[in-house]
């Protein structure tokens, strides 16, 4: 055989070997149980890079063309799903089962759950094509307790910086969109307006007794603003106006019960109904969150104690001795929706001194969560490829 022919055959053979090696690698890598079970069909797997981003300079050719070089194979990252979503849920339930639903531990970096639930979201609306300025509207709080004044804010802004307004007017409506009153916003530093002339406008409303609901109502506020160039902006927000059927009297007491901290709060009930009480517990100086507890029940008119059960394990594991501060206390009348929220009480009381070691070290072992985890695990199977894939 001539030398040239031998060279051609050698080159062709080498090329074929490379292709074959790549094919063999592809087949067997797909059958790898560590990847195949949870992977979606190979044909739909995309490269793990950010869409739209250019491929890195000097990006090597596809692995298939290079053969099973281990160093190159390692670069082929196939996004995968976990073996089973059910298994993840079961694992989560076993973790959560250490504490009861009515009392959860709070890490120092956690947001206070009571404050979180009462945070105000600002609603913004821009022009027809998304142009500035945007109109932003919001109430000072999510809920106002009758007969206190309702404080509302609104402003026009460019890049979140308030700008001058030509006119700013609001309309108060019921949940059924029945108009009740019209009012102007002002920026004069009075009636709840923090700073005069800062372009953040305020309206303070005193609702008449006939607008005071039996329990609670949501009122819609539609706001119309005109920019200095006479462009219109429209937006709406809402607030709750409530007449709760009970109030905290300000009396509290605390005790140890079965290795947990029980804090009693006295409530005066004006009208029979269902009431929900929750509170967060902090270190004495208010510097670190420790736990949250809640309770609820139906109570007749009169004075009653409601008990907040802080599960002991959370306090024991934090290892911080008492006294503790009952930082935020939130009472609601939950007889019907919307629930009527009382004003938040802050720094309600300080407990007696309890050594952290005096609290229980037992996991609560929430039976519902453990049963859910058991059931999932009995039923579970690896997720992934089906008949189509």
């Amino acid at each position, binding site marked *: 055989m001539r030398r040239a022919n031998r060279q051609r055959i050698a080159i062709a053979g080498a090329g074929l070997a490379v292709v074959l090696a790549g094919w063999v690698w592809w087949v067997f890598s797909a059958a790898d149980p560590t990847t195949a079970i949870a992977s979606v069909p190979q044909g739909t797997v995309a490269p793990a890079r950010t869409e739209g981003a250019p491929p890195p300079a000097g990006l090597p050719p596809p692995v298939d063309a290079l053969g099973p070089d281990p160093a190159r194979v390692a670069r082929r990252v196939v996004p995968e799903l976990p073996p089973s979503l*059910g298994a993840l849920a079961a694992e989560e339930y076993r973790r959560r089962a250490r504490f009861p639903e009515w009392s*959860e531990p709070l890490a120092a970096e956690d947001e206070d759950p009571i404050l979180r639930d009462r945070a105000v979201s600002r609603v913004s609306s821009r022009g027809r094509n998304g142009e500035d300025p945007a109109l932003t509207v919001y109430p000072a709080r999510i809920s106002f307790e009758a007969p206190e004044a309702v404080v509302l804010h609104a402003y026009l802004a460019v890049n979140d910086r308030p700008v001058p307004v030509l006119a700013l007017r609001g309309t108060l409506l019921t949940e059924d969109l029945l108009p009740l009153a019209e009012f102007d916003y002002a920026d004069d530093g009075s009636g709840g307006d923090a700073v005069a002339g800062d372009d953040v406008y305020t309206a303070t409303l005193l609702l008449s007794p006939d607008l005071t609901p039996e329990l609670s109502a949501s009122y819609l506020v539609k706001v119309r603003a005109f920019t200095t160039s006479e462009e219109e902006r429209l937006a709406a927000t809402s607030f709750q106006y409530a007449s709760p059927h009970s109030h905290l009297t300000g009396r509290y007491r605390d005790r140890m019960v079965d290795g947990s901290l029980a804090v009693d709060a006295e409530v005066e009930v004006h009208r029979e109904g269902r009431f929900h009480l929750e509170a967060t517990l902090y270190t004495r100086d208010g510097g670190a969150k420790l736990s949250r507890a809640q309770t609820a029940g139906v109570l007749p008119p009169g004075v009653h104690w409601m008990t907040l059960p802080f599960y002991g394990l959370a306090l024991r594991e934090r290892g911080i001795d008492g006294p503790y501060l009952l930082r935020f206390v939130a009472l609601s009348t*939950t007889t019907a929706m919307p629930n009527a929220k009382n004003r938040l009480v802050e720094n309600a009381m300080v407990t007696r001194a309890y050594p952290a070691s005096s609290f229980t070290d037992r996991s609560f072992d929430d039976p519902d969560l453990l049963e859910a985890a058991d059931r999932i695990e009995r039923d579970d199977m690896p997720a992934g490829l089906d008949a189509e894939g």
Partner: protein
Amino acid sequence: MVAKLPHRFRRSFPFSLALVTAVAMVAAASGASAAPCLIFVHGKQTNTDTFTSWTSARNYWKDGSKDFVKTATKNFATSYYVVGYDGTNAYWGTQAAGEVANEIVTATNGGADGGGNHCALSYAQGGTFWVIAHSMGGTIMDYVLGNNDASDPNFNAVGPFDQVAQRISLAITMGGAHRGSQGADAVCGDSSGFCNFVAAFIQSCDTATYWLRSADDVQVRTYSNAPARSIYLTGGYEAIFGASVCLSGEDDGIVQHASQYACNGSATTGYNNSNVCGNSSKQESVGFLNLDVAHENHDDERDDNDSDTRRQVPSGIWTCGGSPCAPNTVVQSSMTSARLVSVLY
């Protein structure tokens, strides 16, 4: 010249293929009996049709020949039940949360939906159940699962929430309005003319819309505790021309990321796929967990119509090389949310 496999491959490859096939058949067979029953809960409606007609509730999940239920159940190999409720009612209403809770209990008892579909195993028989909810269906599940305990603010208020929480294993929401919708804000604030799709989709500030706004006095988190069962979150980021002008950050044309991913803080904060809230920054301390995000709009999420790119989000479920993929990484180039559900069990 025909290339031949080395002898060891000729011998081992058919064996390997047979082994893989056998394993797959066993897995498929066991899947038929052990897969969870999927219970579908639709989203907001502009009329009561899905409440009065089961066919309307079923059609919610279809677009022509495309069918979310068919894909999610692996061509109906997995048992399922389709819930229909009054999608014009407030999420907490008797005909919304109450109806959904009662129907879920019916499903877990082995009862049939309006189309005769029922779960393969009842709860008493050891069955497991996943709720698959879209849009307002997510809000309803927040309310139901967040009021299952006697210490919760609205315990069993309009239905057997405790039984629902006891019986379902988990919920998955697509485009869930957990923190309301800025589309609803626009409609109720008369500014929806600036975003026509929103106006067409939501139509009016009816009771359901009113209670799906971003204002906090109507938010589900204001009236519920952490969900008793994990709610897994996926959503869309395919903006709709015009509509997305009314929404902050990434969105699916109707619901902004802050809401689809149940974020704490302001319901109107603008997030993208890279910085949307992770599992430690949710509207409740526990119970909300991210899956991923799809290049789907609000309709695509529930009708299996747009097999498109999927991306990782912070705390997302996809792993790359054994570690969580970086947020915004493309994890699939073509996969609907229905298909995602089908590969999660």
